[in-house]
């Protein structure tokens, strides 16, 4: 069987048989502890400054951000953004409790459907699980209430993010994921800015296959 052939070839190269039990136990211990390696100092900041660093990095990567005071201001921020971009107010939205709790009726012209994105959807509204200041990165673990297609299939992705969910380094976001979700979800996307390609003459063009626009509505929830 090829599995044995591959493993035996590796062991021949390493000049040993299967790993002795005590060594295997040590490696299993390392996997359970998953120790952090060197983490760059740039995101080791007071929380307010981490949020500012996140915002600066999103904008550096060609994303846009509106900062709003509370949930009540989210529908207005979404509607105004779409109007400014000359986009219709037709949305497919993540069926997430935090988004459902928002009173969208204050903007009656927004036409909202909940669920996954289909090929014809132009604008998605997604819920961010966490965000990483280090590089302006959003974290989207897949779940019933957070469909993966909302991240990739629409022309414009709007992300609702609470400021309290901004962390400094990736490792902190992974710890949040481990403590709040547990085992790895089927899909975890780390998204940094809108889709792009430099395959034509090595020159950067936005909007390759994923969203051409990535807009973050950042809710300052006072943490």
């Amino acid at each position, binding site marked *: 069987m090829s599995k044995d052939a591959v493993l035996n070839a590796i062991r021949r190269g390493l000049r040993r048989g299967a790993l002795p039990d005590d060594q295997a136990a040590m490696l299993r211990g390392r996997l359970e502890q998953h120790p952090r390696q060197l983490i760059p100092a740039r995101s080791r900041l007071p929380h307010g400054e981490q949020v500012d660093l996140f915002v600066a990095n999103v904008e550096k990567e060609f994303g846009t951000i509106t900062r709003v005071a509370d949930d009540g201001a989210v529908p207005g921020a979404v509607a105004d953004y779409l109007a400014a971009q000359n986009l219709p107010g037709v949305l497919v939205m993540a069926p997430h409790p935090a988004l459902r709790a928002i009173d969208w009726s204050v903007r009656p012209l927004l036409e909202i459907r909940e669920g996954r994105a289909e090929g014809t959807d132009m604008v998605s509204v997604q819920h961010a699980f966490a965000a990483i200041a280090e590089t302006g990165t959003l974290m989207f673990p897949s*779940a019933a209430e957070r469909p993966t297609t909302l991240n990739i299939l629409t022309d414009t992705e709007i992300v609702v993010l609470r400021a309290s969910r901004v962390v400094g380094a990736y490792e902190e976001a992974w710890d949040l994921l481990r403590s709040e979700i547990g085992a790895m979800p089927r899909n975890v996307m780390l998204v940094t800015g809108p889709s792009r*390609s430099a395959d034509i003459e090595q020159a950067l063009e936005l909007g390759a296959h994923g969203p051409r626009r990535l807009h973050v509505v950042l809710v300052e929830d006072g943490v």
Partner: protein
Amino acid sequence: MHVATSSAFKENAHRALGDSGLQRALARSGSSFIARRAAAVANLPEFERLRDTARDIKNHTLAHLDFYLETYEAKVLASGGQVHWCADADEARAAVLAICQKAGARTVTKGKSMVGEELAINEHLERNGIEPVETDLGEYIIQLRHELPSHIIAPAFHLNMEDWEEAFRKSHTDLPADRVFAERRDILTEARTKLRSRFLAADVGITGANFLIAETGSSVIVTNEGNGDLTQTLPRVHIVLASIEKMVPTIEDCTSLLRVLARSATGQDFSVYTTFSTGARRPGDPDGPEAYHVVLVDNGRSAMIGTEFQEMLRCIRCAACMNHCPVYGAVGGHAYGWVYPGPMGAVLTPSLIGVKQAGHLPNASTFCGKCESVCPVRIPLPKLMRHWREREFERHLSPASVRWNLGLWGFVARRPALYRLMTRAAALGLGWLGRKRGRFSRMPLAGGWTEARDLPAPEGDTFFARYAREQRSRMPS
């Protein structure tokens, strides 16, 4: 199937130097990768220490690769996926085909995968009546043009705007004749539109993997376009093509490698989409594939473990070595004749397809050391190329003229008095011959040099003589 032409590197390189379109592409793009990487590195004070960390993680993993592969497999199974162990390319091709046939697949979308290129998986699927569609923009045009990629992260590195337009007009037969491709954006929009329907219609999606994580049984891809995510999310079946050295122990280890990957590759702090996939669609999931298969490919890697080439298995395919290589910059990627070009290709290709086929590639180096100085996992590429040169020589694979001349040089170099006498005579003789113009535009036995530039005439004595003189004059009297 693309037959490797690595043994014809010299002829390939010669043709590349005379290819004006290629030279235009190389001149345009060469310096931009270097500048972008330098800016990203300057922006992260810990970068050099992160390279050490990255090297150590990979070394640790390789030293326990059997353990981590088995742990990884158990995790994949536990999360509802399957692992197909493949000792060689034939087994891997058969495994992919069997999965596609079982799924009743007619079309397959593909994210960029260098292992896929190594297996020539597209040709294999086509031969069996399944249509593969490359979705990375660069890979897409390479497929339209029936070429190999010329660069491991920028497959269409060798092409210019007019090549894109020509390929699109030829293969997108529904295009109106008056359709304008004036800007890069027009090309991108056409490809986006064309491929969107392919993404939605595909039965199977095949991606590569930048990393496999033992802790969780996850495969990781990084893209900027988002094509990899559409490829692995929309079809019913997701196949991951991954070679065994993609393994890392934990999410934290993977994170550390990601910190050096994008910076070394494109000079981005982080790629746009970094995606961790773990198994198939879960109960309640509104999207994602129903089946998740990992085709785990050895194809020559395990034989490198325990040899002087084990260090090459640290490679994370960032392409920094080729971006900084003066030889790659002069001849491009196709001259290397197979899937992996540049310094990493010169070391890896002989391991994978044999020193007989590719033993010539390690000679395509000036040994300037730039590749090693930028490698994020600190692979000593020049040293490894030197190992291959020795093997090529030992096995009598180098051409007779090279062997004869090396032998002659070796004879003289081991006799210092003779060596100094001959070089002194040559320096004085050439100096006298070139005393008027100070340079030669032609020289017997040095045509390779004088074809492109003049050879300066020696001025005065040899280095040895001058060195000895200066040492003497520095002595305290």
